[in-house]
């Protein structure tokens, strides 16, 4: 009986967190709802014997994605979230769509192919969850595994390229310019008179380029 109660607890936590995300006016509050949801989901995964996945969920979502959200929320101005309320013409239609969708899904979950009486299949002595995952992930699913690494690399490159902007107000070394510099623009021959220095025309030609410091 206890595992069922724990499931109910985690399920309630997940749904409450999701409701908090939807209802929150302040995105920081929505962030909190997301944390609640994902902690409870991690608990649910561990309850279902997927310890590795549960801990991974905590690590990725609470460690990386939540921090990323908070970072973006910090860089943008939160004042405009106190927005004017607009007339929501799409609200009834949206609610109707969502209600129909929910009804369909719940009907399908209860009377569908996986109808109600699927309980746990009998299994023998099983190795640990992470050993099982490793056995399958690095043999049968090795190509999808590599592909998921590629997806992450693409996302990293994409995020950097999207948010990077070249700045013109900083001095930096341009190796191409440095190499293509000719003698004519870099060197001026003068014959200064005694006691006059090199004169002003030299200063006109010679500008300190951004060469190596």
């Amino acid at each position, binding site marked *: 009986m206890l595992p069922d109660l724990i499931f109910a607890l985690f399920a309630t936590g997940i749904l409450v967190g999701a409701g908090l995300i*939807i209802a929150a006016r302040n995105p920081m509050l929505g962030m909190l709802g997301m944390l609640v949801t994902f902690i409870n989901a991690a608990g649910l995964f561990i309850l279902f014997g997927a310890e590795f996945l549960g801990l991974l969920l905590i690590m990725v979502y609470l460690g990386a994605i939540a921090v990323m959200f908070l970072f973006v929320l910090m860089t943008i101005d939160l004042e405009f979230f106190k*927005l004017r309320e607009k007339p929501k013409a799409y609200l009834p239609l949206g609610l109707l769509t969502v209600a129909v969708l929910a009804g369909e899904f719940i009907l399908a979950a209860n009377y569908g192919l996986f109808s109600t009486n699927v309980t746990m299949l009998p299994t023998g002595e099983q190795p640990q969850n992470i050993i099982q995952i490793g056995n399958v992930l690095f043999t049968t699913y090795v190509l999808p595994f590599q592909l998921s690494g590629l997806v992450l690399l693409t996302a990293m490159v994409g995020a950097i390229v999207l948010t990077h902007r070249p700045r013109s107000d900083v001095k930096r070394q341009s190796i191409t310019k440095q190499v293509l510099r000719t003698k004519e623009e870099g060197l001026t021959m003068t014959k200064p008179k005694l006691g006059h220095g090199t004169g002003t025309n030299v200063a006109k030609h010679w500008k300190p380029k951004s060469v190596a410091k």
Partner: protein
Amino acid sequence: MFYTLTLSHVLTLSALLFTMGMAGIVLNRRNIIAILMCLELVLLSVSINLVGTSYFRADITGQIFSMFILTVAAAELAIGLAIVTLFFRNRGTIEIDAADLMKG
């Protein structure tokens, strides 16, 4: 281990979570950040579905695919937040209605 819990309970939870995520996307037209969060909810519901099926069918494959979903969610979120940052830099807001340059 469970006495009364069956797969359909897990599927119902997953369906509810999916629907709440969809509702958040459809009804929430205020800002992009909230929509991204709701997208995470939808992906989490699929993950719960897979892990529950993996438990009740005693098959590890569901957990593997849940891991791939996690990867895709992280990548999607990184790109999404980069776009949000860019959008805020260009338009000074992250309201959905401000993205009307394409007149769509």
